[in-house]
């Protein structure tokens, strides 16, 4: 469901396991089932998941894990480590060594973000002192050449293409020749989007490679890609022998399991992460961050620890009971806010929880607002606090007057409350196991 994440599931499964002390093989399988589901939901390819789990299981059955006092953490650690190593282990630099100009070719499906990536890469290389020539080999999509020309202008690098009646491999070759003449030391080839099952277009991709011998042949992949990532990557790799991957649209809330699928089937490193529409939104790819992202954890682990330390456990239990009975009043809301305040900035913390980062709920209220919220809630009758749905327009005006605030502020608070309630109830019905993470 919407707000499930591996972190919360594992936290729950492992809490149970931890309670029993030493783990059995069955316990491990139980935990790994959650890992499997999470990976599938993160779009890691079905077969890759199967293999991955088999490997992890073996490591988990190690006596050291089974007898550990903190098996939960051990299992998480193993899963995380395995992911990191599959994702390439470390950062992988671009290879533009050798006699100039170094040619970088970008390949990928339609709409994966090649043209924007070309601009980003160009800007980054320009900043490191290279003279970059961007070459558009996309003679198919309307205005694709124009788009790269504009992007080149934005990045402040040179641009080259020929008429869209010239074949892409010829444009690529002439582009490289042009770079030699004009002393550009890096050439970036933007190619047309193509389906990996389109034999003709894949052959063209191969011809571009043969005509220009690019040092880097990067596959540009949308982070939102589903199960087919494997087939796509495998085929591009087979035809042009890719040297690395650029993962785009990572500013979305996609878990990006495709990264794992691709790394696994090609064995090629992911080199860059593209994180936005601005040319500056481009980074070296960090396997450890990606591993946490795929698992929907990372910072959330910290959050759980923090929350555990801050929350009054008795209140937590009360709250869970209330949610089960679908009761959530303004008083509870205020209690929650006070609890959360103990933990620091509300919005930042809440956004560390996977489901919440994407739930477009207005959680940005300032902890300083708490006093005002308290004043508003205190100006309500006990009945209104218990049953906020009855608060009509005239009641809102009265409450505003009573609390020295405005009707807008009362409205805003009620809206926040209703949103929070809706979300809590949604989560409440979707998964009985989310435990304390629900409480915000």
């Amino acid at each position, binding site marked *: *469901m*919407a707000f499930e994440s591996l972190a919360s599931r594992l936290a729950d499964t492992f809490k149970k396991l931890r309670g029993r002390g030493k783990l059995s093989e069955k316990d491990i399988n139980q935990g790994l089932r959650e890992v499997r*589901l999470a990976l*599938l*939901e*993160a*779009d890691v*390819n*079905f077969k890759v998941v199967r293999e991955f789990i088999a490997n992890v299981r073996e490591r988990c059955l190690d006596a050291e894990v089974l007898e550990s006092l903190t098996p939960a953490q051990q299992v998480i650690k193993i899963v995380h480590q395995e992911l990191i190593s599959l994702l390439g282990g470390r950062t992988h630099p671009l290879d533009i060594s050798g006699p100039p100009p170094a040619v970088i070719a970008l390949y990928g*499906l*339609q*709409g*994966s*973000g090649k*043209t924007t990536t070309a601009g980003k890469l160009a800007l980054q290389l320009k900043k490191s002192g290279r003279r970059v020539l961007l070459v558009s080999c996309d003679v*198919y*999509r*309307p*205005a*694709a050449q*124009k*788009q790269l*020309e*504009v*992007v080149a202008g*934005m990045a402040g690098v040179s641009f080259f293409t020929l008429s869209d009646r010239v074949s892409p491999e010829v444009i690529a070759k002439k582009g490289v020749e042009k770079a030699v003449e004009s002393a550009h030391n890096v050439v970036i080839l933007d190619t047309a989007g193509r*389906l*990996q*099952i389109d034999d003709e277009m894949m052959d063209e991709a191969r011809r571009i490679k043969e005509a220009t011998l690019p040092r880097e042949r990067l596959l540009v992949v*949308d982070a*939102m*890609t*589903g*199960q*087919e990532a494997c*087939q*796509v990557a495998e085929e591009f790799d087979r035809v042009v022998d890719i040297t690395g991957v650029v993962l785009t*649209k990572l*500013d*979305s*809330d*996609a*878990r990006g*399991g*495709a990264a794992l699928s691709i790394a696994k089937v090609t064995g090629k490193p992911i080199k860059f992460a593209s994180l936005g*529409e601005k040319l500056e939104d481009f980074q070296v790819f960090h396997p450890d961050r990606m591993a946490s992202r795929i698992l929907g954890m990372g910072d959330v682990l910290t959050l759980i620890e923090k929350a555990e330390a801050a929350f009054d456990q008795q209140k937590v239990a009360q709250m869970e009971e209330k949610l089960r009975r679908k009761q959530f009043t303004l008083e509870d809301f205020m209690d929650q806010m006070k609890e959360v305040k103990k933990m620091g900035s509300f919005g930042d913390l809440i956004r560390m929880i996977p489901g919440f*980062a*994407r739930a*477009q709920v207005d959680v940005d209220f300032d902890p300083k607002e708490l006093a005002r919220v308290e004043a508003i809630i205190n100006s309500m009758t006990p009945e209104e606090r218990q049953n906020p749905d009855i608060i009509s327009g005239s009641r809102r005006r009265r409450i505003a007057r009573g609390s020295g605030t405005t009707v807008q502020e009362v409205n805003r608070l009620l809206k926040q409350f209703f949103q929070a309630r809706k979300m809590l109830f949604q989560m409440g019905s979707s998964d009985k196991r989310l435990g304390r993470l629900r409480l915000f």
Partner: protein
Amino acid sequence: MGLFQKLKQGLARTSNNIRSKIQSIFQPGALTDEFLDELEAVLIQADVGVEATTALIDSLREESRGKSFETVEDLYRTMAEEVAGIFASIDAPLKVAGQGPTVYTMVGVNGSGKTTTIAKLAHRYTSQNKKVVLAAADTFRAAAGDQLEVWAKRTGADLVRHSHGSDPGAVAFDAARAAIARKADLLLVDTAGRLHTKKNLMEELKKVIRVISREIPGAPHEVILVIDGTTGQNGLIQARVFARAVDITGLCITKLDGSSKGGIAVAIASELGIPVKLVGVGEQASDLRDFDARGFAHSLFGIDQVEC
């Protein structure tokens, strides 16, 4: 090429090996767990997602109680009907205005195929001798307006565009006025790609839609969320968030000429009740199809239909 032939070209490659595996473990009679596991694999690998897949398998298990299946095809058909049923219950044709221009707006994340889908729709309607106006309300992406202009020329549609970086609401406004003044049958509004996680861009989108409905009562008649068929589980989140911001009336699943099956549409239909209205099967203007639930469901399982 037949409607789903193109689809199947792609499908054949990937679904064949799964199918032969299933064939080999199938035994006439009641369903075995082993078989259901394989069926689950098929659905997951079509991007249907864990939750929708589980629901489908559960209902198959329920339905097959006491029933026996003679052949694998039998079983697939049952399953495909189940999937088709999800779409059939929410099916609705593209809405058409009673009078004045009919307005369709394409929305979605970057690169999903909005502009191309606009082009395909333009082609469809100009071929029917309808007057079509295109609104280039993507003023953000480099050369987006030029891209649409090429398509306007190719399809014989009118184009309303402003300069790069200008207010998309203003483009929508001018285009609505132009569509009325020129007595257009259709106004097709292209919007910039935006990730659903960008709050301000979602606000901008709301504004574009507001402008349209203010200028043309009842419009937009369709707000189509364009989703790349290659998309995985994030597609469901996209649909949720877009639908919360604007009234999404249908989906267009693009790039189904590739090897992906677009299974996320099943998850979206079952959770959000948003119907698929259009399907993109290529990069040419003619590569647009109306959605056919049964054909889609059958191709999900790689079943050959005599005519689709």
